[in-house]
């Protein structure tokens, strides 16, 4: 029972990381009906930037927001430079471009920072506290708290501010928004910036667990895909719930299902994607898509 509870807490912690990246995917999906295959690599690059800042003597809690700001700017730059010229292209073209972006960023990170895995500091102590007989590590609690805060911040931004309202309007009704004077293209750029920053959180949170190297996010992005699909790819709330469910599932499957351990956990992620797409393609919180003829 005690071990089970620890696995659950660990699952929620890792699920929070998936949730951040899944939320980043959802933000871009909502903005332009596109799954950004480069989201994980963008987060990885941001994490390298964070490490560079920390290694220059910056304290963790200054480097963290500084990285998010840089990631935000980077996301906007990518949207302006690469995505905007093809904004109206077919989805196939866009997907191939984000894949190119993923390959490019992966290579750039390898070029600048090398392929040797590096350890990444965690601001939380590795001690555990005893909660009713269950040992919970400060790291897990810290990751849960940071992810929770970020998700809350995104929620407040989208639902309670004018900018958030404008962004949602631009995404859902671009034509009407344009008529009302919204600069739709810049709102999309803002969406990319926001997604990039939110994704960066997942990179920074997962780096102390996995060791930082250019391919670090390759497995995490699969779990984030699974989370986004499970929650319903257009639902921010779904991304969070999906992330936590995926985190719980792979943690518990890894601990209790015979034969599922190590890299076969990734197959659980694939299985979740396939089952959800076949059984309920709209996910838990998605709306059924209607197709206009």
């Amino acid at each position: 029972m005690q071990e089970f509870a620890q696995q659950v807490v660990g699952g929620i912690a890792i699920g929070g990381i998936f949730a951040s990246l899944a939320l980043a995917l959802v933000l871009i999906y909502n903005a332009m009906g596109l799954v950004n295959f480069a989201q994980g690599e963008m987060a990885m690059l941001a994490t390298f930037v964070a490490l560079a800042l920390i290694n220059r003597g910056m304290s963790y809690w200054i480097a963290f927001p500084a990285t998010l700001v840089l990631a935000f700017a980077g996301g906007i730059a990518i949207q302006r430079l690469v995505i905007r010229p093809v904004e109206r292209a077919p989805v196939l073209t866009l997907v191939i471009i984000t894949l190119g972006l993923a390959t490019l960023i992966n290579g750039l990170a390898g070029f600048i920072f090398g392929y040797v895995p590096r350890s990444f500091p965690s601001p939380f102590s590795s001690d555990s506290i005893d909660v009713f007989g269950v040992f919970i590590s400060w790291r897990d609690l810290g990751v849960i708290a940071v992810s929770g805060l970020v998700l809350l911040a995104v929620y407040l931004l989208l639902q309670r501010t004018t900018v958030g309202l404008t962004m949602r309007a631009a995404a859902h009704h671009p034509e009407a928004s344009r008529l009302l004077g919204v600069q739709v293209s810049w709102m999309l750029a803002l969406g990319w910036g926001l997604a990039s920053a939110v994704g960066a959180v997942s990179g920074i949170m997962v780096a102390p667990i996995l060791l930082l190297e250019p391919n670090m996010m390759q497995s995490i992005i699969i779990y984030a895909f699974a989370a986004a699909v499970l929650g319903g790819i257009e639902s921010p709330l779904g991304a969070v719930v999906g992330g936590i469910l995926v985190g719980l599932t792979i943690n518990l499957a890894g601990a209790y299902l015979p034969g599922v351990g190590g890299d076969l956990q990734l197959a659980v992620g694939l299985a979740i994607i396939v089952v959800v797409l076949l059984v309920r393609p709209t996910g838990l919180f998605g709306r059924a898509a209607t197709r206009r003829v």
Partner: protein
Amino acid sequence: MMNRLRGAPPRYWLVVIVVVFFIGFPTVISSFLASEWAQALIFAIAIMGLNILVGLSGQLSLGHGAFMALGAYTSAILVHHYKMDYLLTIPIAAVLTGIVGFLFGVPALRLSPLYLALATFALAVVTPSLIKRPAGLTGGVQGILVLQPDPPPIASDIFATLTGTVMTSDQWIYYISLFCALLLFWLAWNLTRHRPGRALRAIRDGEVAAAASGINIAGYKTLAFGVSAFYAGTAGSLFGLATGYVSPDTFPVSLSIQLLVGAVVGGLASIPGPLLGAIFAYFLPIESNQWVPSQSWIPDQIASTLKNAGPAVSYGVLLILIMIFAPNGLVGLIRRGYEQLNRRLRGAGDREAGHVPPDPQTV
């Protein structure tokens, strides 16, 4: 007969020249280079398969490396555990992979292009770890060694009279790959020119309109998946033969990306595209590996990083630039250049007479 030949359009002659070139090529290059070119031809087969799926039917697969893995392991296992002749296993691997692809195409029908891309990408990422598991069958992390066959006496004799040297197994494998590539390119050419090709293009460009014209959408889309996987399975089987070795790391997710790069660079929905794309996608990492260290003024550490990161960076930049500026790839660029040249040479009269072919469809 002569009249027919004289009336043949120039591109038929181009095909003849290319085929003769590829047949004669191994007699003038080293055995090692022949092995590399064999692998480039194998890439061309796989990319042609991807091209049929993406370019013709408009379904995006980011997991064709997984189908190649299936083909390669089918052959390797049949040879290793059941002592079959490798050449016999190639059609078996191709058909088996084709069937699996066909079955994969059935659920894929229900998915939007985006979800299909996502699911196949996940498949490509998971493939290496899936292969490792049944270690008794697949050899686990170690993989399976594939014994390369000696060339048969007849081929060996002909080769010896032409070049004066003995034919190596690498050169024999080159000819096997060339034979398969020619056969499959010819098949693809027939497929695109006839009813299935027209039906698939109609589906790609407007599913509802195609359905209204009486095209069996589900049938053709799954067919495209099956045919595409058949090509990938053939390529995988040949790849194991050419490299002499199959292991989980032979089929990383980057292989699937490499195939996509080849398809996009060459030109989607074209027949010569996959060949050009394959030569490009196969030789780019090799050439950049050889080029970098030879520049002595580059420090060692930077050279090794360039070697690792160079292909990824150039693949990425190319994918983006080509999708933005030349969505029809190299073939599209060549065709455009040729047409402009033609127009300048013959004046504008031909265009009015309708001799200029319509622009190829963009993706």
